[in-house]
């Protein structure tokens, strides 16, 4: 946990295992597909594809460090994308669409937080219920149809097609969210308190931290990330749909845990989560470059997850018990 200058270097040791796993995957890519893997456009593609879950993973990292879990991220993203692409919303133009997605995401997240904090429903169940309900609501709003972003609002689609320095704008959005998440977690009282709330809620309460309020904010933050992810998926697919984000929660949680965050809370890093996620994204890319079929992809993916986790523990070295 590189939170103080001198620890910073030592802290990075934590991620050595993950970096090693990524390097290994890259070597496999170079060996099997030398002509395509290391190209600029392929790397950009990997990052663009990682952007959606990546943003969600940042929010999930906060929630899990804070001692919770959020199963509803995929459904919230779907709901936000649907709400932002209804005819009514679209009539107000792209800016309102973005604001709508962010508000819907944040609002739904806050409802999760209130249920958990004040309703005292365990996070797993509260967010599972939200996953089911938000998914249903998204279907209902969209009448189960895929809603196209209308041509007059194509400014949203430009986020994925528009490039600066050859890199699509969605990648910048992704990077900005990661950077903001890192600063928030490591440099602000909100972030430091998140560790306290997750690691020892009783101690946090005794120290005068409003644990309930903080928990509500954490889920709100996760919801906000889902809203941003909804904007990205709208840009990537040119649509809003209730099928967006299916099973994202599992991938996001897995990325966070592979990144070294404890499911019990109180420990973890944004960088680890993003590295964990990139491992997933690079695996998929490698498989498709090599033309593996889905069944083999799945078998290999299972094995790679286990190997990545074992490598990550080595990276922790003697610091793990």
């Amino acid at each position: 946990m590189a939170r103080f200058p001198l620890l910073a270097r030592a802290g990075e040791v934590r991620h050595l295992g993950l970096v090693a796993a990524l390097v290994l995957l890259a070597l496999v890519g170079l060996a099997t597909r030398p002509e395509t893997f290391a190209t600029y456009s392929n790397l950009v593609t990997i990052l663009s594809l990682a952007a959606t879950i990546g943003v969600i993973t940042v929010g999930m990292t906060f929630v899990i460090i804070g001692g919770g879990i959020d199963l509803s991220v995929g459904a919230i993203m779907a709901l936000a994308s649907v709400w932002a692409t209804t005819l009514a919303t679209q009539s107000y133009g792209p800016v309102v669409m973005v604001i709508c997605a962010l508000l819907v995401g944040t609002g739904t997240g806050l409802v999760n937080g209130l249920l958990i904090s004040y309703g005292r429903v365990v996070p797993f169940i509260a967010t599972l219920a939200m996953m089911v309900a938000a998914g249903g609501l998204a279907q209902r709003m969209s009448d189960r149809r895929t809603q196209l972003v209308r041509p007059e609002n194509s400014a949203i689609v430009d986020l994925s097609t528009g490039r600066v320095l050859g890199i699509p704008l969605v990648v910048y959005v992704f990077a900005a969210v990661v950077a903001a998440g890192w600063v928030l977690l490591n440099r602000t009282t909100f972030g430091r308190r998140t560790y306290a709330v997750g690691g020892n809620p009783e101690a946090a309460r005794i120290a005068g931290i409003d644990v309930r309020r903080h928990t509500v904010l954490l889920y709100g933050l996760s919801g906000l990330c889902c809203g941003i992810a909804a904007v990205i998926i709208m840009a990537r697919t040119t649509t809003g749909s209730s099928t967006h984000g299916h099973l994202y929660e599992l991938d996001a949680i897995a990325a966070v845990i592979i990144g070294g965050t404890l499911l019990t809370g109180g420990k973890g890093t944004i960088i680890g989560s993003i590295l964990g996620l990139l491992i997933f994204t690079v695996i998929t890319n490698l498989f498709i470059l090599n033309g593996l079929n889905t069944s083999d992809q799945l078998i290999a993916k299972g094995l790679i997850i286990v190997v990545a986790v074992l490598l990550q523990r080595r990276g922790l070295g003697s610091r793990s018990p």
Partner: protein
Amino acid sequence: MRGITKRFPGVRALDGVDLEVEAGEVHCLLGQNGAGKSTLIKVLSGVHQPDEGEVRFGGEPVRLAGPTAAMRLGIATIYQELDLVDGLSVAENVFLGHERASYGFVRRREAARAAGELLARLGHPEIPPNRLVERLSPAGKQVVSMARALSHDARLIIMDEPSAALAHDEVANLFRLVRELTSAGVAVIYISHRLEEIREIGDRVTVLKDGRTVAVGLPAATTPTPEIVRLMTGRSVEYVFPPRRPRPAVPEAGGRDPEADGLGTEILRVEGLTVPGEFADVSFSVRAGEIVGLAGLVGSGRTEILETVYGLRRPSAGRVLLDGRPVRPGSAARAVRLGMGLAPEERKSQALLLEDSLADNITLAGLPRYSRLGWLDRRRALADAAEQIAALDVRPADARRPVKTLSGGNQQKAVLARWLINGRRLLLLDEPTRGVDVGARAELYALIRRLADAGLGVLLVSSEVPEVLGLADRVLVVREGRVIHQADARDLDEHRVLDMIMEGSLS
């Protein structure tokens, strides 16, 4: 504080308690385990809301709606259960909840510097403010807790058993600080089960019993011990340490006639045991009926020695023989099969299933006894548990009560009872009286002695030198992972042992 009443579901933890503390004094709170001391101070620091009663501070009636409200008034607390966050650094823990920050951004350098100053004031400049708290020893964590209390500009500092995790010299350090505070006009509420500490540091004493005040404002220095004990327990405890067997004719005569000194055959033999980084070349033996004590500072490696004997750690050299047969390291299950039992240092985290019943806890290590082809003989298990509860006088004597509702001393008895139902050869006791009140302590001592008299070998670790000297037959002095002296307990006195564990030399 006047007429404070606090009810928890099923218990009335406080029942009209009065407490009055003056500026500049050290006011001690005494009482048995579960008397309500911690609950009282949690009311005072805003963690619990009282059901009835009134709190006045500086003459004004105040409402302590939450921890922040208390802190704002200048009430700072060092809690009994460590209240630190493992994943944060020392500095972050010190300022948790009142971070040095501007616009929500932590001013990290300033926080580290300020924390460093507080630690230096506490006599621990060596603790780096940037280190993660999880990497500190229990004593180090206690120091951080104190630093946090000091970081508030407090007019009243409450300390709930701050010395339980501290070694002897650390306690002296703590007292120096307390005197510094009181001379600056700060009031201190001090809770401890060690009467000698109360005598040394306390001005006045308030005694709680079963959630009621039974004595207010007794002079700490002059009230006789039996009187205090009587107030706490409601009865008199005549002796503290049980009598030993008669002194053997030739001490340390093992070898020629093993039974000559009234002790039985050798049960445990440890030869040249070494775990790199923890301890080295440790050799000793324990005989039937003998209590062997390990004295030493916190961090000297005694826990590790016990754990290695028990098979929880792998030694790099040396061996452990139980009844002459080598114990292969690697699994506690094997040690249990061979007849060892360990009462670990951290009762709650290492020994107890807090949610489960007393009976479940007592029969945990004896499950094979109640298993017929895997089928659990529940009637016999319950009967055995009830028998031990009666024999050890666990209170309340209700086998079905969840163990988390028991006081510390009774929980400790439950841990001991676990090992008594299935005929142990050797008991390893790590700090068996930590956080246990005087009355229960005397009972535990008597119990341990009875067990030894019944032929068990006992290996005892305690940070309280008088306890080791009073209870053990033979004492090993451990310093920095080495056994530097062993002798019959009656040939040692407290002063000499303290010198040895601190200086490493014989004075």
